[in-house]
Structures are given as C-alpha cells and as structure tokens.
C-alpha cells in the first residue's frame, strides 16, 4: 500500500500568489497611469 502523506497534493498557494503577482503588477502599473491621465478631465 502506498503512504497517504506521500500522495497529498502539493500546496499550490505560493504558485497562485506568484501567478497573480505576475499579471497583477503590470496591470496595477497600467491602472496607475490611467488614473493619472483620467484626472486631467477634472483638472485640465
């Protein structure tokens, strides 16, 4: 019989965090630039 603990799936949370950071970081940069430009509607 195989050992139960050896079959437990690996913890994916670090990979999930990395993957979301990978796509999230440039998106935050884009949104920051967008907000900077959008404020010109009220200040320009």
């Amino acid at each position: 019989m195989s050992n139960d603990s050896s079959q437990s799936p690996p913890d994916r949370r670090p990979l999930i965090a990395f993957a979301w950071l990978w796509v999230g970081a440039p998106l935050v940069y884009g949104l920051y630039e967008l907000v900077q430009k959008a404020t010109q509607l009220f200040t320009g």
Partner: protein
Amino acid sequence: MSPPVAPAGWSRWLVPPAALSVHLSIGQAYAWSVFKPPLESSLGLSGTQSALPFQLAIVMLGLSAAFGGTFVERNGPRWAMTVALICFSSGFLISALGAATEQYWLIVLGYGFVGGIGLGIGYISPVSTLIKWFPDRPGMATGIAIMGFGGGALIASPWSTQMLESFGSDSSGIAKAFLVHGLVYAVFMSLGVLLVRVPRSEKPVEGAPSAFQGPQVSARGAVRTPQFWCLWVVLCMNVTAGIGILEKAAPMITDFFADTSTPVSVSAAAGFVALLSAANMAGRIGWSSTSDLIGRKNIYRVYLGVGAVMYALIALFGDSSKPLFILCALVILSFYGGGFATIPAYLKDLFGAYQVGAIHGRLLTAWSLAGVLGPLIVNWIADRQEDAGKHGSALYGLSFVIMIGLLVVGFVANELVRPVDARHHIPAPREETADVERQQPESA
C-alpha cells in the same frame, strides 16, 4: 498535442492568471497608435499607411478566431497559447527587422499578418478552458480574461511611449522598441503556456454543476441555428454602439461643449478618453460577473435597452450638462465591454461547453463588421453635418439616433433567442475533453 490535464489538487485559480498573461499581452494591439507618429516621421508614411499594420491585425484576429477555433478545441489551450505566443512575438521581431532595414512591408507583414494570427488564436485560447473550470461562474471567469484584453492597452500605451523616449523615435529606436516588445511579451505569455491545464473531470468543483450539463452543440451545428445569428446581431449592434463613442470620444466631448461657458481642453478630453477605457475594462469584469446572478438574456436587455436610453439622454440633454454627458458615455462604454465579456457564457448556456471556444471564434466576425461600421457611421455623418455648416453637438445628433436604432435591433434579436432545438444537439460530446475521471461517474 493533447490537452494538458491538471494533476490532482491543481487549483482552478491558476487558470485566470494563465489567461490574463495572454490577454494582457495581445491587448497591446489597441496601443498601436503610439507607434504611428514615429513611423510616419521616420519612414515618411501617411496616417492611412501607418494604420495598416493595426487594421490588418484586426482583420487577421477575426479570421484566425473564426477559422482557428476548431483547432483550438481539438489541440487544447496550451497549443493555442503556444501558437499565440510564437505568432505575436514573431510579429514584433519581424517588425523590428522591418524598422531596422526601413522596409515597411515587413512591419505590415509582421505585426499585421503574423501578429494578427496570434491575436485571434490568443483571444479564444482560454475561453473554453475557463468555462470548464468555472461552470458555476462562467461569466466571471471569461470576464477576467477578456478584461485583460482591455487592460493590455493600458499597460502597453505608457510602456511603449517610455521606450520610444528612451530609444528614440527614428527607425533604429523603433526597431529596438519592437525587439524589446517581442522578447518581453514572449516571456510574459509563457506563464500562460506553462500554467494552463484542462480539468480532470467534468466537475472540477465540489457541488458545482458540470459545464457539460444540458444540451451540447458542435461549432458546425451552432452556425446553422437561428440562436447563433441572433447573438451575432446582438454582439454586432452592441459593439457598433460602443465604438461609435469610443472612436471619436475626444473630439466629441470637445465639440459638445465648444459653445458653452465651460469648454473642454485637449488634456481634459484625453482624460475623458482614459476614463472611458476604465469603464470599458470595469464593465468586462463587473457586468459579466453580474450575468452569473441575473442571467445572460437579462444582462443583454440591460446592455441594449439601457444603452439606448443613455444614447437618448446624450442626444436630448448631453450638451446642457457635462456630468450627464460623461456619466452616460461611461455607462455605454461599460456595456460595450460587458457585451464582449458576457458573450462566451451566453454561448455556453445555449450550445454547451463542448466546442464553445470554436463557436465564440466564429461569432467574433461580428466584431470585425462592427469595427468598420461604428466608426464609419459616426465619422461619415459628422463630416456631412460639418459640410452642411453645423457645429457642436449637432454634428452627432443623427449618429446617436442611428445608434439607438441599432441597439433596438440588437434588443429584438436578444428577445428572439430561445433554447436550441433538440435536432442540433449531439449525443456524445465527450471525446475531446480531458475527462480522465469519467470512468468513475459521480452521483448526480
């Protein structure tokens, strides 16, 4: 290539970032305008000529999504994302060669033709997989991915601008910028290729319905149903109405308030365009997620019905109130984005998850037509009105009436959507899924 099956314990929350890595990249297409002025000055091109790579890319997007959808379904998302990565990045590399040697046709071929294939295959690559992973929230899942396409331009526009400032706007600088784009996007998209997996079973989530619940229709069968063509009209009308504003947003807001005590400056108009982009993106995730709660038909009633009311408000009172004009335009653009993002889930409701990616690809031909129709209507009418001596908001009144008419046509088409007739259903739609646990059926 067989679809990559998720190992036991694979999280479905790894699939949206995989999809986003592709959509955020290919969304760069909407930031092409950054390259237009330097190309025109360094290669001596006209505005029409410098738009050619973008226009060809959008045509190729529609064609490759329509004709490549079946291959995407057959070979799986990793194959599709790999093709998208190779084509999109190669497009930039070929363009870099074109700029370095001052051979403009290479830029058209690279960015427009080769890169355009990457756009189409990349756009549809994660749709079917996301729907299978999120059978309980297909609208939200596809909304996240398709939001990425809107977000891609937000990233690329300032990034490309800064790169051209660093490298210079001559042909050598443009070549370097294209080269960096090709390499960086290849690395960025590789996350999607590496992470994407199809679920092991039809029920990747405990307690959620199967994505294959209900009738299943093949892509070939779907285009023979009136439902497909009703949705084609719905998408075409919704996109046309949105592009009608998006295309001329900056001159439109300037013209509307030119004769008032509070005219809109050039920088304020640029801010308005940026705000519309935000509404477009927010609508993709917001409205598409809402459709999971209130239903697909109802959300399109909102897009098309309330959209028509918004256009009517702009036409009647827009020039008397700037906040009202801005608010209505933002709502219309959020519906424009929402319409794009919700359509895969609507297709899944009607035709099942079996070949939803391929069906979605075929439906995107509506986008190609709308991309021509929307700007054509607004620009042509504005030019004619100007020739007739009109100015200000009067340039757009007739366009808005036409947009309201188009939205009503879309509304009626949505009302005509009924469940697909049983003669179009296929009996055993399982051979192309990675259903490795099907041999151990769960109790219903």
